[in-house]
């Protein structure tokens, strides 16, 4: 039994554990740890960038820091162009979900009808602008409606308080606040701002809590001061518009120039447009004619012919020129005076504006001498005012001149100028023989010019120009109460195609006060068709009213008594030139 019991009690030998089990388990655990360490190493070191990026994209944001465009101001700091933030509302039509009530509210905020809005949203495109450049407070109201699929974006809109009076100089900007015309275009570099950016951390309320990296500072546009004086500009515009209307003219231009500094204090054009709503305006109205269009100046050119002859010693102011019988043959061509005169002194040639006299004087000069004077006075080269598209005008090289051409150029035909060029050329007579650089930007006062003629010559011509506006001259209507003025009329046939037409360009260029010239005013009226077409009838009265008001506005001391204006009797025949 015992044997049995013993055998029963003898513990069945435990099956021996395989020797490898413990090391296996241990090894596997170790492997797991290795995997864990490997993974964490991978995450920490190798995949680090991706993960950091993911994290930042959840709480970090790049915010654009807007930079607004610089203002344009006039010479006294009056704003002429200001950018102000606006919002544009756009939608992904596919994502838009809104209740009819919301639609009505949205339509009301956008000042349109629900039907019009629905039509816009259902025209099949993926993206539509519902409203462009609306005031921020309206956009705010729309944002509070919380309509899915409707978003807004920041934009700038530029406003021009001076409107149509100054649109040609300033120009305008496009949608993205980039200059498209005028000063806005040429000064884009100066005016335009460069937006900056910041990387920031935001909290769950959407507030910025920390800057992540260095801020890229926005570069705001700089302000730009123009030479324009808003008061004079308005005056110029008002008078020009009135004159164009009264003479049923096609177009017109007026420039006021400061004699000492060459600054353009006013530059008005007609027709014009409103830069605050420039989208529907014909390109033609946008042209700054005073700088981009040329015309044949006519008799306003005569003083330069005379100055050239005086300068080179060919004539003296009292030299007598025989202009009878009012015609003069140059080869097969004949030059006419509108009103035949007899023997005239050089002074009287300007005063009476005799074509024959001017042509005879011109032909006594070598063509190179005359060309030199005209070229030195700035004809044939762009005036460099800093305006886009300004033209040079035409002044052909002296070698190609035929005698008849030299004779007609003496009284301003066969060459072309723009109005600013013409006004600037008169700085030669208004100063003591120096041509001042014309500029649209505010400068620091008087500038040195380039000498063109001797001071004596300039003074002699100035005296002749003063005679021209007095009774007996061609433009008594240019006289200004309280100031001595000097100037010259121009009436040119328009050149169309190959020949001259019976359409005219009437002009007047002059300066005042003669005792110490301060301003030059140049007026050009294109195709006056209400009867009168002479510069002395059409352009001179504009000169007179603009010059008088401008001098008073600037507080220039009068240099003549208040009753100095002597107009010839109404019945007196109009003595005019062509």
């Amino acid at each position: 039994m015992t044997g049995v019991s013993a055998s029963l009690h003898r513990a069945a030998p435990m099956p021996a554990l395989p020797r490898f089990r413990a090391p296996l388990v241990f090894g596997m655990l170790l492997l797991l740890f290795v995997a864990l360490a490997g993974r964490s190493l991978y995450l920490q070191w190798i995949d680090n960038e991706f993960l950091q990026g993911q994290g930042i994209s959840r709480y970090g944001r790049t915010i654009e820091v807007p930079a607004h465009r610089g203002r344009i101001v006039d010479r006294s700091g009056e704003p002429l162009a200001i950018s102000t933030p606006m919002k544009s509302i756009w939608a992904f039509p596919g994502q838009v979900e809104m209740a009819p009530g919301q639609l009505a509210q949205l339509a009301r905020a956008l000042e349109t009808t629900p039907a019009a809005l629905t039509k816009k949203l259902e025209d099949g495109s993926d993206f539509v602008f519902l409203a462009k450049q609306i005031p921020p407070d309206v956009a705010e109201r729309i944002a509070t409606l919380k309509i899915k699929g409707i978003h807004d974006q920041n934009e700038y809109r530029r406003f021009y308080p001076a409107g149509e009076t100054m649109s040609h100089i300033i120009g305008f900007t496009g949608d993205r606040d980039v200059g498209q015309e005028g000063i806005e275009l040429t000064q884009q570099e100066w005016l335009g701002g460069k937006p900056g950016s910041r990387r920031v951390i935001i909290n769950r309320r959407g507030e910025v809590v920390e800057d992540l990296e260095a801020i890229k500072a926005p570069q705001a546009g700089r302000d730009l001061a123009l030479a324009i004086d808003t008061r004079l500009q308005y005056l110029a515009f008002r008078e020009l518009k009135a004159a164009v209307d009264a003479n049923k003219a096609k177009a017109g231009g007026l420039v006021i120039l400061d004699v000492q500094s060459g600054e353009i204090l006013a530059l008005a054009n007609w027709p014009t447009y409103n830069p605050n709503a420039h989208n529907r305006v014909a390109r033609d109205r946008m042209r700054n004619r005073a700088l981009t269009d040329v015309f044949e100046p006519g008799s306003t050119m005569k003083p330069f012919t005379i100055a050239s002859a005086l300068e080179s010693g060919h004539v003296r102011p009292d030299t007598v020129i025989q202009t009878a019988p009012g015609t003069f043959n140059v080869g097969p061509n004949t030059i006419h005076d509108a009103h035949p005169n007899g023997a005239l002194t050089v002074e009287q040639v300007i005063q009476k504006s005799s074509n024959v006299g001017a042509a005879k004087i011109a032909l006594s000069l070598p063509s190179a001498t005359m060309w030199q004077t005209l070229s030195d006075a700035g004809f044939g080269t762009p005036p460099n005012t800093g305006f886009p598209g300004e033209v040079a005008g035409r002044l052909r090289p002296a070698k190609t001149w035929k005698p008849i051409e030299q004779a007609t150029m003496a009284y301003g035909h066969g060459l072309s100028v723009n109005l600013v060029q013409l006004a600037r050329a008169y700085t030669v007579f208004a100063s003591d023989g120096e041509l001042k650089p014309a500029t649209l930007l505010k400068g620091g006062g008087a500038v040195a010019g380039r000498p063109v003629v001797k001071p004596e010559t300039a003074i002699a011509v100035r005296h002749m120009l003063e005679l021209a506006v007095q009774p007996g001259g061609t433009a008594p209507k240019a006289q200004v109460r309280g100031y001595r003025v000097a100037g010259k009329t121009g009436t040119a046939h328009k050149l169309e195609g190959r020949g001259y037409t019976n359409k005219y360009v009437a002009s007047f260029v002059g300066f005042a006060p003669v005792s110490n010239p301060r301003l030059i005013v140049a007026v050009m009226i294109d195709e006056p068709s209400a009867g009168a077409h002479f510069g002395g009838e059409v352009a001179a009265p504009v000169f007179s009213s603009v010059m008088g008001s401008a001098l008073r506005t600037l507080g220039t001391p009068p240099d003549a008594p208040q009753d100095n204006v002597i107009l010839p009797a109404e019945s007196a025949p109009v003595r005019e030139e062509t």
Partner: protein
Amino acid sequence: MVRVNLLLLAVLVLCALSLVTSRHQARKLFVELEREQAKARAYDTEFGQLQLEQSTWAMPARIEKIAREQLRMQVPGPARIEVVPEGAPR
């Protein structure tokens, strides 16, 4: 030795807590700064708009219209102008 360690532990905890609070403070101040800067930008915008409004009101065309039509002003005739020369005794 143990004491020193405990002391260091306390200092460490204190430091950690103060770091947390100052970090929090910094964020609060930063948010405030942001808010003030946004306000400054808004004022800047408003300034621009006011300038625009002012210059619109002050346009010579409008001034002239009011002077002529409402106030019935006009340029005086030559008979009513007396010129006082510069430096003349009063």
